[in-house]
């Protein structure tokens, strides 16, 4: 019999938050103004500084994980705005990444919460189930074959309804469409890339994927879309469901590593940020650590690839001018987590006559944050309203953002009068000279 290594304080031995990382925080509070939950409630425990303070106490064994601690960690959106704001370089992202799995392992959640979370994770990472859910008609009818959803519906039909209301209507053609496995570059090839098509993205925003493939090809990229790809595990990773997330990470690596491409490209901020983390996630797994490192090093957000191509010889495809004000919303997982801020702006500016406008409170999360608008709908709605008001305040013609979660969330609060797009849709329309779509 082997004894498990002793945990630290209230944490178990499997990757507790590192003492050095906790000590980096000097309690200066510079993170407070950018933290969405502190903005909403003004409570210290719901700020990054407060959460790190509680982690600190838990690590020293002065408080337990159950109760206030897990509630306040649960309320964190994981937007990582605090990481951008921190002058001391505190790696809150790493801290949260180690604490959330600890909670999943060691905290007893209420039955309702458990059922709801199980249902979410029985649905979102599965394209097939999402398609079923997306079709017109009651969610439950389509999903009764999935045990976790059936259990939720039996106990808490209300929350199932909440889930359903978040999913936008989508037409059958789009939900079931698939991308071509290989799209050749237009003209001389400048790069060869493989595209992660995503789960929510491919079902609800298939048109974004199509636009992305067309733009990449027009800019001189051969685009491969492996048919056997699975969910990258981002949603589970950000919710602390470590084991399933790692499983998906390994399968994703397997699928993509054998391709002879320059970059593994994604147009989803959340997926990009998790795939860039694989190397760290699998650092304890000797069989996978090197493969993960090589994989993560090849991951690029589509804007990074396009901005590099712009720098290296300028745009290949001629653009048609777009006369209007474009408000770009930084998706948290792109801006804060991946620090990709200048590239999307550079790509948008490659469209002639386009006027790029910045949003007030740009650093503040829209409230989507992975599954946050499902598990904390009230807070998410307040943040969504606030984001929508900030968007309206600059009077844009079009709003663009590079994450399906943000598109869904902002779309709900902004209404339908203002076009809300992924930047690739706008660029695609500019290259093709077609009308700018509304969604």
């Amino acid at each position, binding site marked *: 019999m082997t004894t498990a290594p002793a945990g630290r304080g209230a944490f178990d031995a499997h990757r507790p938050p590192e003492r050095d990382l906790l000590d980096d925080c000097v*309690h200066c*509070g510079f993170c407070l103004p950018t933290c969405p939950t502190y903005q909403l409630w*003004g409570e210290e425990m719901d700020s990054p500084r407060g959460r790190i303070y509680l982690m600190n106490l838990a690590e020293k064994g002065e408080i337990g994980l159950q109760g206030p601690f897990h509630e306040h960690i649960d309320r964190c959106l994981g937007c990582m705005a605090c990481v951008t704001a921190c002058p*001391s*370089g505190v790696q809150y992202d790493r801290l949260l990444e180690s604490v959330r799995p600890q909670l999943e392992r060691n905290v007893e959640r209420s039955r309702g919460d458990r059922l709801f979370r199980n249902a979410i994770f029985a649905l979102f990472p599965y394209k097939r189930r999402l398609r079923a859910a997306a079709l017109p008609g009651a969610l439950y009818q389509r999903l009764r074959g999935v045990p976790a959803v059936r259990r939720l519906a039996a106990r808490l039909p209300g929350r199932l309804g909440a889930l359903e209301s978040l999913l936008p209507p989508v037409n059958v053609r789009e939900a079931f469409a698939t991308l071509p496995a290989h799209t050749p570059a237009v003209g001389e090839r400048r790069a060869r890339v493989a595209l992660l098509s995503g789960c929510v993205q491919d079902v609800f925003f298939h048109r974004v994927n199509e636009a992305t493939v067309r733009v990449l090809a027009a800019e001189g990229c051969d685009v491969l879309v492996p048919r056997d790809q699975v969910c990258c595990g981002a949603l589970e990773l950000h919710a602390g469901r470590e084991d399933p997330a790692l499983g998906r990470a390994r399968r994703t690596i397997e699928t993509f590593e054998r391709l002879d491409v320059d970059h593994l490209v994604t147009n989803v901020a959340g997926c990009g940020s998790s795939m860039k983390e694989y190397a760290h996630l699998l650092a304890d797994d000797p069989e996978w650590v090197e493969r993960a490192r090589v994989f993560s090093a090849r991951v690029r957000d589509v804007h990074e690839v396009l901005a590099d191509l712009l720098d290296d010889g300028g745009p290949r495809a001629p653009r048609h001018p777009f006369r209007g004000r474009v408000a770009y919303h930084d998706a948290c997982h792109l801006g804060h987590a991946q620090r990709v801020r200048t590239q999307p702006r550079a790509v948008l500016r490659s469209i002639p006559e386009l006027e790029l406008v910045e949003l007030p409170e740009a650093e503040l999360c829209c409230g989507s944050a992975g599954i946050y608008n499902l598990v904390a709908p009230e807070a998410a709605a307040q943040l969504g309203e606030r984001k929508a008001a900030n968007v309206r305040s600059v009077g844009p013609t079009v709003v663009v953002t590079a994450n399906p979660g943000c598109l869904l969330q902002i779309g709900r609060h902004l209404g339908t009068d203002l076009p809300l797009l992924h930047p690739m849709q706008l660029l695609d329309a500019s290259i093709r000279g077609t009308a700018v779509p509304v969604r």
Partner: protein
Amino acid sequence: MALDKTIHSAFARATGPENVIDDPVRCRAYECDGLTGYRVVPDLVLLPRDAAAVAAAVRVCAEHGVAFVARGAGTGLSGGALPVADGVVISLSRLRRILEIDPVNRRAVIEPGVTNLEITAAAAPHGLYYAPDPSSQQVCTIGGNVAENSGGAHCLKYGFTTNHVLATEVVLPDGSIVTFGGDSPEQAGPDLRGVFVGSEGTLGITTKITVRLLPTPETVRTLLADFPSIGAAGDVVSDIVAAGIVPAAVEMMDTLAIEAAEQAVHAGYTVGVAAALVVELDGPVEECEVQFDQVKRICDRHGCTRLHIAGSAEERAAIWRGRKAAFAAVGRISPDYFVQDGVVPRTRLGEVLDRIAAMGKAAGLRVANVFHAGDGNLHPLVLYNAAAGETERAERLSAQIAELCVELGGSLSGEHGIGTDKACSMPKMFSRDDLAVMQRVRDAFDPDGLCNPGKVLPTPRLCGERPGPYRPHPLEEAGVIERL
């Protein structure tokens, strides 16, 4: 002994139960402010939503003899918002409305939880701004600024919080509401507004503040100059002053501080240089250009090794980012550090820095220096490693530096406040009579001693039965001041 249930429910009635935190774990998040060395868990944390609720909460305190401590963003560096055992923390973080921006009279009326930078952001569309700019301006609140009489990099030209607050509505320790100051600088009777600003939360809680706004300067010119020695940089400051120029800001950083800031924000400082000087001039374009040329010539005359003039708003922002991030950035080059905040007469800067260096050497600890060179306000950062058992030595060095400033004719604190941290050092700067008179003023506001007790003035409980004996102030010995 914790507060009993009746008192709890009285507070819940005062502020609304949803604005009370009574869970001991949650309360621990409030056990310290920006100075983490002192920690006390409050019994309750109240988060009132308006002035009436603040007053109601304070009335409950008065009625039941419960001590209270007001808290803004908890960024203070002197332990001014340290809770009191069996007391309550009244957090102003939910009083964050901007009540009025009056561009005609150039003023703003705001609640205490509004951050310093939010005032400027709200005024900016009218071509106005709020001048005091403490380094933590993006997070620190105006209520905290009023309590601490915060300065900032630009206070050399523009003054401190007290010079910009026209009026403040205050909940007194008995729970009544009064207003100090008014719509103009003219006041009927003594300047109670001036006494309240900078009283570190010991005379009451501000619930509404009227501040002056200034027109955004037409021109701002900023330069970053490297020097081979601190002395040379200091001479530049003296010459600028002697030339009759009042810069908007003059900031100095030494090698260690530059290294930390550069690591944190990559602002374009030269790593390895002995001293960097940030000089900023603002004002009418004609004036600014003439004086800026003078400043450049003065820099050259003192052996400046690199002169970087901000060519755009972004470059200027980068220079300031480096300077303003310096404190927190020191966390990158040292596991732990203490920040000091002493002031010396500007002409003694060179001397005090030499002595700090010698003291650091003797203590075997590194000291990084960031300071407002224009007004002699030093921020020595004593670097140490708690894990290596250096805490006590660092604490001692830090206190010695503060007292050195007093010895050189200066002050214990230029802007961070006395708070908990330096209360016991007050007898080094003030006589027993000085402190007794301050206590009389305090008692006039707070006869029951419930309002942020233990801060600012030394108490036997905190500092031992006999606070350190008063030694004659050197100015006294020099005959500059008299003490009877």
